[in-house]
């Protein structure tokens, strides 16, 4: 605990001391990364999820190098405590993110935890997961005024681009 005032002020400090020490912090983050790769969407305290996000994206970048790569295999072996997930990482997640360049995860805020600590929580998920989407896009209906005007405009442009014979023959 930071009991002195100068130690309590943390302006500009990016290092987050999680857990009991440096080794404990790495173990914590390793557990979270394993859970993320297994379930593809987890809820965690915001600070831990934020810290873990960088490690998860770096792991996926290593996985993209391929499982024949020695360094990639050693990284996956260290970071994933459940060894069946190494196969999932190289065979499922790496091909999924091959066309993307970065930003493989999405992190959103959640209401504070219900227990006594009222901790700030976040949900972190791998993009392209098979679960239902977190944010539902509310699109305007096709029949609103603006959409109808734009539809008419689009049809006019199509007719001008590809003039069809009147009473077109059925395809």
């Amino acid at each position, binding site marked *: 605990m930071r009991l002195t005032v100068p130690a309590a002020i943390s302006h500009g400090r990016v290092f987050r001391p999680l857990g009991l020490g440096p080794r404990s912090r790495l173990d914590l983050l390793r557990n979270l990364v394993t859970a993320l790769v297994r379930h593809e969407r987890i809820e965690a305290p915001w600070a831990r999820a934020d810290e873990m996000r960088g490690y998860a994206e770096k792991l996926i970048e290593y996985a993209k190098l391929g499982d024949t790569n020695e360094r990639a295999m050693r990284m996956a072996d260290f970071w994933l405590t459940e060894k069946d997930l190494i196969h999932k990482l190289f065979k499922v997640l790496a091909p999924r993110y091959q066309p993307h360049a970065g930003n493989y995860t999405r992190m959103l805020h959640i209401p504070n935890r219900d227990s006594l600590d009222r901790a700030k929580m976040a949900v972190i998920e791998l993009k392209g997961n098979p679960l239902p989407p977190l944010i539902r896009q509310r699109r*305007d*209906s096709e*029949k*609103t*005024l*603006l959409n*109808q*005007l*734009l*539809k*008419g*405009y689009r049809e*006019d442009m199509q007719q001008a681009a590809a003039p069809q014979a009147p009473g077109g023959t059925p395809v």
Partner: protein
Amino acid sequence: MAARWAGRGLWGRRQGRRFIYTPAVSRLTSEEVIQMRNELFNKEKERQLSLYPRIEKIEVKYTGKSHPGSVFVMNKALSTPYNCAMHLSEWHCKRSVLALVDGEAWDMYRPLTKSCEIQFLTFKDEDPEEVNKAYWRSCAMIMACVLKRAFKDEYSVNLIRAPEVPVICGAFCYDIILDDRLNDWKPTNDNFRSLTRDAGKLIHKDLPFETLHVEAKVAREMFQHNRYKLEMIERKASQNMEGIVVLHRFGDFVDVSEGPHIPRTSFCFQYEITAAHNLQTNQSELIRRFQGVSLPVHLKAYYIVWQKLLERSKRLVTEEKYLEAAAEHHEAKDGTEEEKAASV
């Protein structure tokens, strides 16, 4: 101007001693016509208000999604759907454009007459067809008001009607007959810009649209100088069972219309009058169709998109093409239904 009016009055009175008094000739100045119409409108409104000297209460049930099961106790012939929305929230007041009273589209400022069920329609509903039609009608009426006042008094302006064009055509229109001396006049871009600025002034004034359901003879008296309006009144009265015609007014412009309008002029945000075309008819007078495009406050468009919509609205809009398309669409739908029924 004052001298001209006084001169005409004296001339009428001097003629009255020798010939039969003809009221139509003496009221040809547009301001007098406007004043006469407004006086008749106000008189009719007061008369309809005086039919209910004591306040009676009616129960209005709300059938919308936001506050299910609410019941409002409102005053008969005094409370409007806007008052019901005021009981719900400010969001409802600002967003609702029309009210669905017992399944029928009503203006927000039209008084409720009996216990009923009410629902509010906005621009962003699942099916805002009625709202779109009402918005197009209101925009056409604003354009008519602007056109009526745009010309000098010596040139006569005869409004005909606003054709009921679907929104997908890209422009609302109003048919109008100008003075014979203006037959060769082609409106330029500057003219359209000044008309648009007049419309902008009206929108900025935030005038409410007042509705009045009157009997056909009162409407005929109001519009006695305009034979096209008289024809429209006859048509509307014959369609209605009780011979009642709906009139709308905002500011001091009164017009016959085919259905409900938006509550206030400030609901329009981007408004522009874009083109004028000459309609080809077998009549001797030249009918012009003025067109424009507009978007409401709730559905603003980015300026590049707005420019493209403006370009499109300059093309002539005709009703027949879309009526045919609608008829074909209905036939196609019936055809597919028959096929499905046959296959099953």
